């Protein structure tokens, strides 16, 4: 094997495992050739640097734009007498994207700050109108609808309106959350996490955005806030699974320790086994491992 052959195999080995014969030939060449050995080390180093490059998360409005762009195709398929395959919950999701958020998207397609501002302003106006009409705060809306003393059809209408208003408030809260979470400013993203926490554990998209924030946000304080905001959703197995994964995946010991505290405080029985396994992981930070062992021994 000459050096050119070795370089080709080195390059191949970066992306694909070599077969036994090729691997052995390459190893023999590298053992005898200082230049190729140095080249191999240098190539591996830059390849691993690329591996460590953090993944960037696109703005949430991209998903909304996609949903809006899909809608005409779905409508066309339906109008051609297509099957019921375009109906059902997934269709509803697509329609949601083309609804309120899609409308905002078309008006303000590339101005997330303006979107967030408009949404927040609308939320405040909505709450103001609600309070002027005696509806009270959103958390009380359902109860007032049931016990508001409005009988018959008028009572039913009021109940429906209240539900519609509550849905609208939730939708706007979600929009504000998702818009804030993709801002450049860490303080804005922190506000987004706070909004997300208020949205509660029942909003799947907010929950997913909080998990994405925990996984990818470059700011440790934002990630810490996301841990707190996700606490109410710990009862959901998928969320718990992802939080457990993050204990080993996070690079900040502070975030790792916050996750350990949360999991042991709220879900000791469910998380203990996996956290115990994690103490044997060689990639776990030494400080975090020591802390985890102490917590497992004392809890």
């Amino acid at each position: 094997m000459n050096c050119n052959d070795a370089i080709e195999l080195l390059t191949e080995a970066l992306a694909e495992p070599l077969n036994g014969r090729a691997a052995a030939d390459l190893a023999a060449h590298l053992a005898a050739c200082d230049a190729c050995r140095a080249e191999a080390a240098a190539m591996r180093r830059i390849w691993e640097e690329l591996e460590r490059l953090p993944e960037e998360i696109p703005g949430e409005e991209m998903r909304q734009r996609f949903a809006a762009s899909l809608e005409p195709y779905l409508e066309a398929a339906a109008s051609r007498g297509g099957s019921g395959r375009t109906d059902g919950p997934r269709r509803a999701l697509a329609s949601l994207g083309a609804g309120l958020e899609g409308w905002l998207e078309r008006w303000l397609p590339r101005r997330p700050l303006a979107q967030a501002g408009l949404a927040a302003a609308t939320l405040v106006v909505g709450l103001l109108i609600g309070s002027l009409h005696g509806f009270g705060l959103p958390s009380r809306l359902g109860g007032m609808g049931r016990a508001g003393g409005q009988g018959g059809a008028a009572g039913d209408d009021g109940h429906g309106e209240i539900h519609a208003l509550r849905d609208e408030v939730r939708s706007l809260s979600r929009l504000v959350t998702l818009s804030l979470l993709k801002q450049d400013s860490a303080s804005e993203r922190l506000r987004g996490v706070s909004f997300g926490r208020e949205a509660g554990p029942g909003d799947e998209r907010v929950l997913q955005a909080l998990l994405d924030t925990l996984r990818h946000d470059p700011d440790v304080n934002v990630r810490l806030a996301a841990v707190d905001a996700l606490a109410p959703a710990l009862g959901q197995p998928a969320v718990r699974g992802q939080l457990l994964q993050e204990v080993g995946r996070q690079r900040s010991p502070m975030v790792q320790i916050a996750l350990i505290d949360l999991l042991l405080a709220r879900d000791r029985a469910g998380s203990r086994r996996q956290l115990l396994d994690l103490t044997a992981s060689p990639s776990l930070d030494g400080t975090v491992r020591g802390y985890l062992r102490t917590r497992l021994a004392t809890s």
Partner: protein
Amino acid sequence: MVRDPKAAASDTELMAAVRDGDLVQLGALFERHHVGLFNFFLRLTGSRQLSEDLVQEAFIRILKYRKSFHPQAEFRPWLYQLARNAVAAHFRKHGRDHLPPGEPEERVCESPLALDELQRAESARLLRAALLRLPYERREVLLLSRFGELRYDQIAELLGCSAGAVKLRVHRAVRQLREIFDGLAGRT
């Protein structure tokens, strides 16, 4: 409830369903691939806004050209073919002059970082900048091989050359990236 990503059909099965008219399955493909595709475009162009537009365009192309997908084929090479076409169409229309000249757009972290986090963030910043200073063709082949999860023979098919030529281009790209990166980091 958050979706369980493991409980799902393969990409090829989903795309075959889209091809046969079940368009809502494109939503599942979008969820799986839009972040990866966004990062491919971002590392290729350095522009977040353009990358978001290109992801949108790529998925529109999937819809438009869904009939050209063969159910026996792998989805990922086909996706990246459409992605490359979307970039090429953009460059034909707008040229490349508006792209950031070697400095990627990035989010600014306001709070103080620990020293090791600071070093990692700086290293990532320099590597992104180095990537953008690679000649476009080398950058593209490097990104396809490193992040596209494509085999060399699949990249060769995309680029219309031999697998051997792809390996040579990747090696040259890695070597040049290393030189630029070390230069930016003050190691040379």
